């Protein structure tokens, strides 16, 4: 039964995973996501699950690769520079078509960067989370509730596609508390049914002649076949595109933002509306696949410009916006980076400079 509680983002993510059936978690300490492994260390034994503190992010993601290859629901989480070390395991899962779910609670970068929140892993998350040019569905929540719902749903997407799924959040949502409705606990029967679908492929020991192989590579033309199959699967993701179009009916100024930046932009848009400026927002909820059509299909006779709001310098989502808009209207950037938060005032000030030019 659904229940409403007041929870911190990281802990809500962990609880949502447990309720979705996660029974294995491996992770390595890194700020600002430490409460996820800490919560899992307490919680998983209560439901018969296993928590392992890996000796590194590299080990943790490979433990996840192993656990998920047995067909159980498993998870790992890390933050930015730790996620870089996940590249290996994520790429292996994508190649071997292992459903795996992981969470990036973003912090400042590049390098060790800063422990405060940022949105500097957009291109890594959406374009190249490892070698080999694979793709993943990347979900970008803008509230603790969405963190919960997306983690809960991520397993279904991962299992449907036999592919990794990333929930890309940030240190703001990870550390803030909000009321959330928690989803129901999956029953043992439901989880057994999920696992049964994977039974032929699960690496658990099979009778002779029915061996299961989990191969992140191949010989001859084998790997190309794997890649062609994966590419065909990526092509089916149009139906999975999710986007929020906020006050867009008559918008002349379009904010483009995801995650925490969208939340800030929403507040600014309400202020601008109160001042008579027709502002709206396109918020990609799936940043991969990206809602290109929401930008392509804008009425460029009405829309005077787009304001890309990101906590990244240089801008990253801008690449996708430009790809969709093709120069049909000006695009302005309002950015912070390196763990420095955007504030409503900064976004409004940055937006007003642009609005004065184009309106």
């Amino acid at each position, binding site marked *: 039964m659904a229940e409403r509680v007041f929870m911190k983002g990281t802990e809500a993510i962990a609880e949502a995973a447990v309720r979705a059936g996660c029974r294995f978690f491996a992770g390595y300490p890194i700020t600002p996501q430490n409460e996820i492994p800490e919560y899992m260390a307490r919680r998983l034994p209560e439901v018969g699950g296993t928590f392992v503190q890996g000796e590194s992010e590299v080990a943790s993601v490979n433990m996840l690769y*192993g656990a998920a290859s*047995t067909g159980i629901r498993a998870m790992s989480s890390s933050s930015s520079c730790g996620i870089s070390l996940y590249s290996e*395991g994520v790429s292996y899962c994508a190649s071997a078509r292992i459903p795996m779910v992981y969470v990036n609670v973003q912090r400042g970068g590049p390098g060790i960067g800063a422990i405060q929140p940022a949105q500097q892993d957009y291109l890594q998350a959406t374009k190249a989370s490892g070698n080999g040019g694979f793709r993943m569905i990347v979900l970008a929540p803008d509230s603790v509730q969405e963190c919960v719902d997306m983690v809960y749903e991520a397993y279904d997407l991962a299992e449907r596609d036999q592919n990794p799924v990333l929930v890309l959040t940030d240190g703001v949502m990870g550390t803030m508390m909000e009321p959330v409705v928690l989803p129901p606990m999956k029953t043992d029967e439901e989880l057994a049914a999920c696992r049964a679908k994977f039974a032929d492929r699960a690496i658990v020991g099979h009778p002779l002649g029915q061996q299961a192989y989990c191969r992140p590579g191949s010989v001859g033309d084998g790997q190309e076949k794997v890649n062609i199959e994966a590419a065909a699967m990526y092509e089916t993701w149009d139906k999975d595109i999710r986007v929020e179009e906020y006050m867009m009916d008559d918008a002349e100024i379009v904010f483009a933002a995801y995650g925490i930046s969208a939340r800030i932009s929403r507040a600014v848009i309400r202020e601008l509306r109160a001042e008579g400026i027709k502002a709206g927002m396109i918020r990609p909820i799936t940043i991969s696949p990206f809602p290109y059509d929401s930008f392509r299909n804008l009425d460029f006779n009405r829309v005077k410009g787009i304001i890309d709001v990101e906590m990244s310098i240089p801008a990253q989502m801008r690449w996708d916006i430009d790809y969709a808009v093709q120069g049909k209207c000006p695009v302005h950037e309002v950015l912070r980076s390196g763990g420095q938060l955007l504030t409503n005032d900064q976004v409004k000030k940055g937006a007003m400079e642009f609005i004065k030019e184009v309106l």
Partner: protein
Amino acid sequence: MAEEKKVYTRTKGIIEGAVSGFCPGCMHSTIHKIIGEAAEELGQLDNLVRVEGVGCCGLGQFYVTCDETIAAHGRAGAVATGIKRSSPNSLVYTYQGDGDLAAIGLAETMSAANRGENFTVIFVNNGIYGMTGGQMAPTTLVGMKSTTTPGGRNPEEHGYPMHMSEILNQLTAPYYIERVSCDTPQHVIAARKAIKKAFQYQLDGKGYSIVEIVTSCPTNWGLDPLKSLDFLREKMFEEYPLGVFRDEGKKLK
């Protein structure tokens, strides 16, 4: 005359009719054979999971009949941890070479051993990187030539060979550590016994075991198979003496 009985049969642990991809005289194929035999003797071929390292080990994927996954280079210890913790009843072993286990995977090896993970490590030590063309491994002997130590391994520059069984024996958690070889029929039989014992310990839930097998690499040592046996016995056994380093099961008796 008594009826004729078959006294040695090819194990069902390797694919019927398959010819291994290993070089002539390479003991990787011997080890695949005795792993299959050990598991077969324990009635565990249907329950066997192989986590394969990267390198020549990879050729085994077309040779064995058990469930199998390939770990990224060095990560077999982590992948096996994930598998065994999620499927505790499976008989899980990693199959790793010296570059995989002792260089790129050193952290995963030590940490899995230190946690006392309940799986078995088959560690093939031939003192060189085979698949990539004979580069220096952590286990390469002093003075031994490799493609990245063309003048021979020089301790001042490259350090000394790493003795993994001895190093792992410093940890408290491992249950069973033995170093064997496959250069004679007697050693092959002893190696099979060691693997079978390690598997049995795992089935009994005893925790981490490692069987290090000191072998040759005729191709990259630049020796024919018989000469490689001489080098193995004269040089490798001197650096890597065979024997049981730890057997907690024996202590109990």
